């Protein structure tokens, strides 16, 4: 990926050039996204899910069902605790139906589960991005032994069978705050994928004319990194982070699905799907609702990331 756009402006005015280019670039990408039906639909859906997550207590207050409130009236004990009514107990009272056996409201659990999933995915994204950018920049900027050390650590972490290892660590750790543990484990194994790209781009950027010009005109190391190199990494960082969020939502759900993620009674989408496994034949709605939410959320974020990449690539090509 080349970063051709800001370079001619930077040549004319090395310090200010890179600063104002991304502003118009951002507006251009936003305009391209607004014209794209897939991107707009994805944004609307994500907005709704985020709104639902934020308003989870409000939803519970309106429906009168908390995420952990049992509703014995909604399930039929004669049928082994299957929800009463069709489609997994969907009714005006329980919009998405109830869980078999204990009758917990699925809408409330989806809303509270969204909070957990998003919180973990976004924290992990912020942390991996921070670590990835800092270490990738260090390796690419200073090169030499700094690069050697950081690159070897990245090789080591990327050679690890991350999923098996994450599960093994999570299952052997004492039950502390699972969310914090999940974020930590995802971050430790996640940052090299971002750092590798940042390092590669920094390596090509430090030798570009506008960086040389800045250096020749006496700019400090900090100024070069923050005003010349970082603005040029912006597009790929935006793309990588939008694509990282759905990845981490999937990882969290997968780990919770395997029983090492968020512990009950805290709801999470993956954990809901996991507990639905033994019911899938008799109560398919129980896994269909969280499964659909998980699928659509990951899809929306992926579509959005993909369209942002297409828009920023188109800008570079022109």
């Amino acid at each position, binding site marked *: 990926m080349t970063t051709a756009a800001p370079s001619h402006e930077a040549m004319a005015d090395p310090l200010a050039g890179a600063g104002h280019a991304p502003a118009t670039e951002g507006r251009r990408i936003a305009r391209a996204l607004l014209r794209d039906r*897939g991107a707009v639909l994805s944004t609307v859906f994500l907005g709704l899910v985020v709104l639902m997550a934020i308003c989870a207590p409000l939803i519970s207050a309106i429906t009168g069902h908390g995420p952990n409130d049992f509703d014995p009236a909604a399930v039929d004990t004669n049928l082994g605790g299957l929800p009463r009514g069709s489609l997994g107990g969907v009714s005006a009272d329980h919009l998405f139906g109830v869980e078999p056996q204990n009758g917990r409201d699925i809408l409330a659990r989806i809303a509270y589960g969204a909070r957990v999933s998003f919180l973990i995915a976004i924290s992990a994204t912020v942390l991996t991005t921070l670590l990835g950018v800092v270490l990738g920049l260090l390796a690419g900027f200073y090169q030499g032994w700094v690069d050697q050390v950081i690159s070897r650590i990245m*090789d*080591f972490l990327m*050679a*690890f*069978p991350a*999923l*098996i*290892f994450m*599960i*093994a*660590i999570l*299952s*052997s*750790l004492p039950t502390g705050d699972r969310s914090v543990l999940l974020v930590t484990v995802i971050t430790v194994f996640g940052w090299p994928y971002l750092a590798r790209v940042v390092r590669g781009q920094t390596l090509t950027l430090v030798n570009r004319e506008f960086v040389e010009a800045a250096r020749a005109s006496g700019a400090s190391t900090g100024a070069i990194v923050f005003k010349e190199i970082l603005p040029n990494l912006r597009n790929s960082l935006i793309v990588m982070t939008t694509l990282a969020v*759905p990845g981490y939502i*999937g990882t969290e*759900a*997968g780990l919770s*699905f*395997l*029983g*090492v993620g968020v512990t009950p009674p805290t709801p999470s989408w*993956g954990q809901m*799907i996991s507990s*639905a*496994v033994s019911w*899938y*034949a008799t109560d*398919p709605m129980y*896994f*269909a609702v969280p*499964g659909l939410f*998980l*699928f659509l959320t*990951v*899809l929306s974020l*992926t*579509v959005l990331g*993909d369209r942002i990449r297409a828009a920023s690539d188109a800008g570079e090509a022109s």
Partner: protein
Amino acid sequence: MARYVAGRLAGLVVLLLLVCVFTYLIFFKLSPDPALMICGKTCTPDRVAQIRASLGLDKPFLTQLGDYLSGLVVGRDYGSGPNLVRCPAPCLGYSFQSSQSVTQMIVDRLPVSATVAVGAAVLWLIIGIAAGLLSAVKEGSWWDRTAMGLALGGASIPNYVLALTLQYVLVVKLQILPFPSAVPFSEDPLLWFQSYLMPWLVLATGYACLYARLTRANVIDTLAQNFMRTARSKGLSPALTMRRHALRPALTPIVTIFGMDFAALLGGALITETVFGLNGIGKMAADSIAKNDQPVIMAVTLLAAFFVMAGNVVVDLLYTGLDPRVRVS
């Protein structure tokens, strides 16, 4: 070339050693005491000490690690006197749960994981590359937009959601397929095929979507290169330029990624095997983690790391053969 290979192999051994030490350290330091778990509820301190001694857990950490490593290379002896048990060369210890040799457990389960991985790989390579090629050739067409839209969707379905959906539709509702069971091919070829079909489909979906997008992007990139213009301008037919000039540079990067993906799958498709109840390496990993069966967890982690790293080396060597631009001196 020989020096390059030797260097890569040495690097592989060093990395494996590091993974080994790191994994051992984590389980040694963090895991709950396996002796307490084996001992159960009616347990005396003496009995715990006895179990710890018989498992070798009373020794200092470095001695344990040393024993484990030498067991891998030359084998080791367990117990003493008349109860002496010899564990031959690639010795990975004995399961705390079933007392079986871990090496034997892996040998028994590897065929299942390999069957899952090979079948899925065949499916996703054929579907992914064919769809990607067609999309690249007909860029911007109705086919291209549909296929790439589907590819985004398919790559977004978590595989356990897909697995449960397929199982519900195909097994419970339509009753086209039986519940998967890992029957050997020689026993009942039809049941074998029916059993593995869903795991193959589930694993192949995500990869096929990725490979389709990747193939499309690579082929479009290659078609825009100067040497392609030269090939066309000297009068070669479009089909021939595609076959002779475009495919090789477009598909070599796919070889790299395929090697890594396939190697990772050999180490066990954890979620897919667990959902379908197939007794492969992945399910063994999940079970051993649930029961805190440390020797098995260690072995599975090492095996998976070995496959990933070996895959990495094989891919790099293949690459030098496929792409003359990166020949090593």
